[in-house]
């Protein structure tokens, strides 16, 4: 009985680990997709210093990579990016961008992603990572059909 219990606990533990691993893989490898009805959350981490280049001379920014986009059936949408503020569970907008041309786009590989730099306020720039809420907001109509795929984000 004791051995069986141990085996069951071990199996359960392995299952838990497997589920957690799937979640973490989902957070990093599964595309992050925002639609008008479903924003997405992306974690921006600090880029290695060697990669900063010219960016090291400038105020801190968040660089967001967009790997795919589909415009709405009618009209246009914009991406609105807000930083999650853990302290008071609020969010603060740091910028917004549009995809131009307003046409379907799919990066053939990550190096072809479109990247957008948004200023990160000093009070939010101190940590190693920030969580970003990315909303897709229509200018007119309901923005139906629109999709924005985020390949990743980093702080520079």
């Amino acid at each position, binding site marked *: 009985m004791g051995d069986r219990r141990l085996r069951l606990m071990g199996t359960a533990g392995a299952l838990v680990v497997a589920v957690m691993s799937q979640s973490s893989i989902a957070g990093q490898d599964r595309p992050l997709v925002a639609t008008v009805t479903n924003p997405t959350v992306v974690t921006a981490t600090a880029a290695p210093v060697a990669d900063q280049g010219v960016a090291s001379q400038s*105020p801190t920014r968040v660089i967001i990579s967009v790997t795919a986009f589909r415009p709405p059936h009618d009209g*246009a949408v914009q991406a609105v990016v807000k930083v999650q503020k853990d302290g008071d569970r609020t969010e603060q907008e740091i910028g917004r961008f*549009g995809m131009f*041309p307003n046409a379907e786009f799919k990066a053939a590989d990550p190096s072809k992603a*479109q990247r957008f*730099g948004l*200023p990160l306020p000093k009070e939010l720039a101190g940590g190693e990572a920030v969580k970003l809420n990315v909303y897709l907001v229509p200018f007119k109509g309901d923005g139906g059909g629109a999709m924005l795929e985020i390949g990743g984000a980093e702080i520079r």
Partner: protein
Amino acid sequence: MSISRRNVLLEGCAIWAGVIATQIPGVVALAQGQPPRRRSVGDLQLNDPIVQAWRDGVRQLKQTPASKAISWANFAAIHGNANAFNLCPHGNWYFLPWHRAFLLMYERTVRQLTGHNDFALPYWDWTADRQLPAAFSQPTWNGQTNPLYESQRSMSPTDSLPDEIVGQGVIATILGETPFETFGTSRPSGQDSLDQSWINCKGCGVSGTLEATPHNNVHNIVGGLMGGTQSALDAIFMMHHCNIDRIWAVWNVNNQNSNDPLWTDMTFQNNFYNPDGSFYSPKVSDLYTPETLGYTYGLAPPPAAAAAPAIMALGDKMKTLYATPNMSSTAGIKSFTAPNVQHAAATATKPLDIAVEVDRNLLVAAARRAPAGAGNELLDFNTARERAASGPRALAFIRDIAVTQHKNTLYRVFIDCDYLSQGTPISDPHYVGTFGIFGVHEDRGGKAAAKPSIVVDLTRAIKRVYGSATELSGRIRIQILPVPNTSTAGPPGTAAPGRIEVAFVSA
């Protein structure tokens, strides 16, 4: 480029422009003074010679077969066709200089085609003018098809660009971004040569706020051709990019471009045309200074802070106005009073709409006054305020206002808005301002308090609404619309002024 060097270039621009121009076929060298000035299309009347020259030039280009090098279709194809962008860079650091040269091609060509040597492309200052310029939203002009009009646009003539895309806060963010690769979008990732393929490596850099926010979103909000790869087929494209170009010039007053040879030494080989059909192949470093290219935005380095005589004179007149409610006229002040205001009240469903008969000439002067700017661009607020104080301005005095439910009400003021409703946004060009009332009608020791009076400055709204109008009546309608001051507030109250005056003041 430092400011001192820029000063030398500005002072010597006539010589420089002459030297540069003589080397470019089809361009008339300017003998003296500043090169032609690019102006805001919002400040130009529909029959202004600049607007007319653009119409004429676009019409001629559109009437030329696409097979010709100098044609509307062929110029636009340089930027892109129905399926894809062609030579134009987006999302990398050539975005600004390439589009500067692209606009130059149009400007020089229109001068050549129309013979209007002082022509300079107007810009659409969408921060100040949130709606499509009137010259571009009319299907016809003087009985002819308007070549500046496009029926496919998503943006209607009454739609307004939002603050979050083009507002002063966005512009301030843009102008505060440094260095150049943050402001003007960064180099393509991995660029290691001056090979032409790096120019239109799409989206290979990191777009800064200028490209990502107003540039991209205005394209998309205008929509139709402007939203896609054929955007240069829409004549508003040039006005939109002219404003982007102007913002770059403003940024340069206080900031230097990149000095990286991978940027400065890139040549846009055979990307553009001279007016005679030969290729125009500038290097990025040829494109730094508008004045050497034959145009100017009239940007001057900020002067040292000095005494402000216009502000002081205006202040004296304002004191006179405040002190003399019933004054009709004195030096530099002319007042007009609306009749029959008593017993009229503004409600949420029926805004107050009071017509005031004024001197038409004074209304024209206020509508046509030269723009002063807010000072944000050059961070010289003293000079901006002095300029703002020195021109004619119009003020509305709304006196002795009886209000109800004032604690949960904002009172928005508009002028001459025929479609005014609770849904009319404050970004609408007819919007003047908003006032609230605090602590009114409270009995103070047995003595009733005087009803409040407020003054609002109508000048900017008059410029937006009447600035490009060809005919002005001598009447202005002052409108008051009560709205709830929070989303959870109850129904808004009412406002019934005892008297409304419009005063025109010149410092």
